[in-house]
């Protein structure tokens, strides 16, 4: 289990990102290609282990042919000696394999190759489920500490965690071309939850996957279809175990909650400190100085905007941009051209503070009346839309090229020119 994660998280991040088909296929091929030689090796080197195991599971794996018995038992040996799955009871293993063959309809006929492939799929799915469950439980704790309603937590666990995890586990069988009963896959999850609860000492004993599967079959009548994923997760995993999980992790949730509350208090205090550093403020002022005179003369004195005055702004902006890059990085042409853009962005909003009418060409025209009523408020609320518009305009003027002080200065001055020659903009005035 991971350590308590201490940072404040966004609910959107509390999801499980499954491996994609290529990765799963890679895992499968790797395991499958080595499994056969490992089995052979195991049969030769560990005869006593196999004999004892054979005696122990005599009746439980009686359904397997002698050849497959050896394979199945060797694979168990490999699991145990190579620590692929921790604490795997031999009896459970026998039950699980039996159920696995039923769930894939391979109980009556299964070639040796298929058998090894199927076991490879099974092992990979077990590992993926264990991994997914551990992330899901961590997310469950994080979500529970965020004062979100239980119904929503359940929904997030289903939609953004278990749905992906179940699809991924299903994929482990699909890549081996074993169509599998979805109830078996769900049973692996149920078993995994039980194992976690047992670790927490909430329950004393887990049931085997095979056992859970046989139980689920009697209650849940369908076995295939993507449309069942939501239902089968809710039915077999969350409805029966959600409350128990809550109880089991109560103290961890509480302590997480406390940490979170403290962090929020700190974050709030930090928020109150003006967010702009002195350096940022200095940049805005520099940039503003580069265009202020032109803005003032055009808007207040109605001096006509022309190409000569635009070029003057362009030159000033370019110089300012280069100076800022030197101030921050010591060079004129920096590796992150987006930085130049960010320098400009802050300046824009201070331009709007002074001259709200400048935002007019960047707003959604349908919201004109809202904007005119209270431009400052509107600009604040629609900051992101305005930024998008601006980015769009700048990209248009830079022709999609990489940002440089030169092309940005040109773009910026062109946009200012457009705005300052817009009659509507000039006709508006917001007295401050």
């Amino acid at each position, binding site marked *: 289990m991971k350590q308590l994660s201490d940072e404040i998280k966004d609910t959107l991040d509390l999801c499980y990102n499954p491996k994609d088909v290529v990765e799963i296929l890679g895992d499968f091929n790797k395991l499958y290609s080595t499994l056969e030689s490992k089995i052979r090796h195991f049969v030769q080197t560990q005869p006593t282990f196999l004999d004892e195991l054979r005696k122990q599971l005599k009746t439980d794996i009686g359904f397997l042919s002698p050849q497959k018995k050896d394979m199945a038992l060797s694979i168990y040996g490999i699991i145990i000696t190579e620590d692929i799955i921790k604490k795997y009871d031999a009896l459970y293993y026998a039950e699980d394999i039996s159920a696995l063959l039923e769930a894939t309809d391979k109980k009556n006929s299964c070639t040796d190759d298929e058998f090894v492939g199927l076991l490879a799929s099974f092992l990979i799915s077990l590992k993926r489920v264990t991994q997914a469950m551990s992330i899901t439980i961590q997310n469950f704790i994080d979500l529970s500490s965020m004062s979100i309603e239980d119904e929503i937590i359940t929904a997030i666990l289903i939609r953004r965690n278990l749905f992906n995890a179940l699809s991924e586990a299903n994929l482990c069988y699909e890549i081996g071309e074993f169509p599998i009963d979805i109830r078996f896959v769900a049973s692996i999850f149920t078993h995994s939850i039980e194992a976690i609860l047992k670790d927490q000492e909430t329950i004393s004993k887990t049931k085997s996957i095979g056992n859970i599967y046989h139980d689920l079959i009697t*209650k849940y009548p369908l076995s295939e279809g*993507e449309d069942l994923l939501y239902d089968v997760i809710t039915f077999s995993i969350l409805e029966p175990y959600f409350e128990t999980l809550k109880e089991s992790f109560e103290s961890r949730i509480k302590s997480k909650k406390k940490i979170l509350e403290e962090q929020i208090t700190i974050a709030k205090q930090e928020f109150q400190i003006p967010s702009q550093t002195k350096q940022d403020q200095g940049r805005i002022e520099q940039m503003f100085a580069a265009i202020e005179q032109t803005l003032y003369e055009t808007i207040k004195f109605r001096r006509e905007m022309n190409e000569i005055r635009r070029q003057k702004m362009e030159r000033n902006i370019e110089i300012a941009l280069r100076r800022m890059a030197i101030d921050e990085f010591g060079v004129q042409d920096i590796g992150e051209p987006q930085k130049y853009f960010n320098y400009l962005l802050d300046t824009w909003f201070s331009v709007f503070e002074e001259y709200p009418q400048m935002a007019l060409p960047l707003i959604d025209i349908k919201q004109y009346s809202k904007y005119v009523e209270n431009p400052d408020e509107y600009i604040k609320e629609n900051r992101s839309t305005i930024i998008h518009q601006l980015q769009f305009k700048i990209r248009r003027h830079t022709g999609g090229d990489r940002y440089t002080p030169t092309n940005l200065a040109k773009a910026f001055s062109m946009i200012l020119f457009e705005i300052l020659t817009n009659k509507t903009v000039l006709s508006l005035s917001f007295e401050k």
Partner: protein
Amino acid sequence: MIEQKEIQSMNILMTTILRDDGNLPLHIAKVFGNHTLIQEEPMKNQLEKGLEKIKIPEYFPKEDITLEGARFITWQIGKEKTQSPDISLIKHSYDNNFLLNIIISNFSDLDILDASAEVAFVLQAITGIHRRIEIPVELVELSDEEQLKGLKHKLKDLGNFYHWQIFEENSMRGGIEKIGLAPMLITALLMRAHTMHDEIQCIGECQRIFNKETQGSEIKCDCGGELVIAPPYLKIKNASFVFPEGIDEIISEEESAPSNFLNLILKTMFPRKVSLLFNQFPDLNFSTMVTLPSSSYYRSISTNDTIKITFEYKELENDDVLIFAFVTDTRYYDNKLIPATSLPVIMRDIQRNVRGEFDWEAAIERTQLGDWKVSPFISFNEISKYATLKSLIPGNQEGETIE
């Protein structure tokens, strides 16, 4: 977070499950949100009951190009422009099951395509749940009522989460649209429409629609129900099409029929039956509300392409409205087409220069569409007579019109 609380919202999920073996379909509607109308349980129930009576499968014609979602703007006719809600509509089908999602709210930045994926998930889940509860378990069979109750409960859970994601978590909001591939502008339309406000609806038993003229000043319907003025709707009078020369070689003949484009636009209009139902709830102000699409998304089922129509409006005198519609499509790529990324600029230039239909051609000339063909204005009823876009241009008609 405080700002969120002030957002008024009403989020509707209505689903129809068609069943085999002559069983009647199941209709379930659930309403979520904090709109004043649905604060009281009885009102909410009444609205849900009304929604369950609307036959939604009829909005799902079996066609390759289907409407996936649309955004609408609204305004009140005859009133000063005040804040009027935005509406979004998303629809999905899965096997024989259908889902319609309508969100009325005073925010307008729902990402239709993101939300659409969630709505699809809701319907898929409902489909699976229904499939399961239909089958008897341990010889216990659920009656229709029990099935309905179970499904309602699940739709409530699923809907709650969907609603929470939009209004609390703020996911699926804002951001930049992610239409795969490079969409190209294939056609632009200018339509002159009239806002019709001539219908009266019975909100009693029979729910019939009457014409204002013929019904005179009756205030009661024959059935005893109350008569109220039905919400306004738009009637398209005529349309002019703008398209690149050689369009007929780029898109298929069938696609290039002017009526095909017009149909895409008509199918985007807000479902009349839903607005008639909303009109029975005065709190929603539908009696004078004009509902117009601002954008709509169609998906080609066979190729998974997206066709998007973006709308702009200009109000004229006497309740006339100019509608600009721009059709972008990811299926076609040709040098003669213009990338959709240029659309905002083109739209702005047109919007700025067009005041009536007479400025249209001149306005087009001043945009990037300068060398595209502009058809004359064709009356709505005549449009279906033209087989292809090309045939709309005088001089091209010979031998191409359908008799």
